[in-house]
């Protein structure tokens, strides 16, 4: 890959890779991940698996692998999840009058915190699938490419994860939290799992293990 082609690849995908990494491990570590991904992409371009159909899938696969080095950071963020991490600039302003507020914890916040803590206890590849689908909106094919799983494994895995998280949350939250514990909830999952002729990428769990990283 020559210089201009590398620059084009970077310009086209740097935002997507950075956003993916920043959502999971924060902005500082995300810059490191982006750097790792693109340098690795250029050095290993000749070894790129022929069946990685899209550049984005290939780069997401590397980003997912490099994010493993920051698993500790990610899990710490998930276990200490702060609702302020979400940009609420477009949300309806919350009432700030102290007379109108109460001291009770917001059940939605409590639920989210419990779910995130449960996600932190999942296997890394399970977190990868969850975040690629839920946060990045990846199709099953792209998720498979990015995680090295088979495409037909994604949907069953998601279904299993939903149940597992429900069980985990049920043991830690009060009954008034509104998580749907019915099995039928799986059928209403609004994810787009229909598309894609992409096939799975067999990508190593870490393309270039870094002894200095904070991977667990």
């Amino acid at each position, binding site marked *: 890959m*020559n*210089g201009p082609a590398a620059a084009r690849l970077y310009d086209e995908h740097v935002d997507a890779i950075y956003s993916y990494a920043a959502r999971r491990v924060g902005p500082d570590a995300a810059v490191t991940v982006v750097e790792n991904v*693109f340098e690795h992409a250029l050095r290993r371009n000749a070894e790129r698996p022929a069946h990685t159909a899209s550049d984005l899938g290939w780069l997401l696969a590397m980003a997912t692998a490099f994010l493993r080095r920051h698993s500790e950071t990610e899990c710490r963020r998930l276990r200490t999840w702060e609702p302020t991490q979400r940009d609420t600039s477009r949300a309806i302003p919350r009432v700030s009058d102290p007379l109108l507020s109460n001291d009770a914890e917001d059940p939605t916040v409590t639920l989210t915190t419990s779910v995130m803590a449960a996600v932190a206890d999942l296997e890394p590849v399970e977190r990868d699938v969850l975040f690629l689908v839920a946060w990045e909106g990846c199709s099953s094919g792209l998720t498979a490419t990015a995680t090295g799983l088979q495409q037909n494994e994604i949907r069953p895995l998601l279904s299993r994860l939903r149940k597992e998280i429900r069980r985990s949350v049920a043991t830690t939250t009060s009954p008034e939290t509104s*998580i749907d514990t019915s099995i039928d909830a799986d059928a209403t999952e609004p994810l787009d799992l229909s598309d894609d002729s992409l096939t799975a990428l067999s990508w190593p769990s870490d393309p270039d293990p870094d002894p200095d990283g904070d991977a667990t």
Partner: protein
Amino acid sequence: MNPVQVIEAARPEVGMMPSIDRRHLRERIFDVAMRAQSEHGPVDVASPNTRAANALRLAALGLLGATAVGGLLYSASRDTPGTRATPAPATAPVATSPSDPVLDTVAQAPVPTLAPTTTIAPVAGSDQSPLLLPPERNRLDALTVTRAQLGASALMLRAPDLSTISLFEVDGLAPEPDVVQDGDGEQDNDTEQDSDTTTPPPRQFSGIAVDQPAEDTPGRYRVQTPCGTVDVLDVAGRPQYRAEIVQLFDAIRVVDGTLVIDLPENWGAISSGPSTDEFIFGLPVDIDGRRVTITLAQYPGGSIAFAANDQLQYSPATFNGETAWLARDADDPALFDVVSMVGTTAIRVTASGISLAEAETVVSELTPGDLDEWTNRFGTLPVDVDPDIRTCVDQPEFRLD
């Protein structure tokens, strides 16, 4: 709400990657790609190491071996005493099945050509490589590109007292007449000076009228012209309308917008040239264990006059063997600006706390490059060039008589 929907709802909104990181990384990526290309040459990524490809390679090796053995046997059978047979070229067709690929196993001598066989190194400041780019993976402190101003040009003069004076003209509209408030609150367009305003009247010379320098811009004179603007820049601390400035203004007349300058005796024109695009980067370098930032401004196709268009006092110098003009800050002598030419590109180097020789070394180690390399490394150029508003006929320009 199921857990995936909870996670979806908690999706953090992250901003863009910080621009300095984004830019620095882009430079590194480009650098890695260029290094890989120069070290290893182009890589055929369309030929994966598959079993089929390996079979083809084995077949080709087999054919080569069979051809070599056949050639040796053939040449041995043709040997006669007293003669040394030259091995016949192995052009005999090798029996292949119809499905086998046809392989050319004959080593062909290169066809004579007049084309150059060596790569010509890019020349700094040439038409092909007008820019200088940092060779290493440095994090640049500053990076700006400013497009040329339409119809602008600069002229740099040297007075008999060896002071330098810069002139700069920009095309534009006709100057608006002064707007004066009448007592009844209506506005009158009146070129006469109103008694309430503090702006002094323009000073008349033999061929031109000159606005007085404003209090906040001492040493900056504006010559009145039918269209656009013409500024004459003297060093800020010098007396207003000093003798050399008066001598210069007396030597200028405006003819249909053109400033005709009949240079007096002992005056010299150092340089002149049009406005060109300006490329600036600040390069941090380590010199004797100290981190110093050298700012390099480049003007492809530009001139010393345009690169040194300011109110500094320049003295002649040399920079990497080229004629240069050096200005040292009166308050901070360690800070200097040096303006010179690299081929057809004017450069301006600004640094503090290093010697001119050290600045020469840094600049000489920069890599020649073209506009494409700049945009590949640092991103696209700004496209917002000034709109052409030159409806006024008598646009200013300089002419030395």
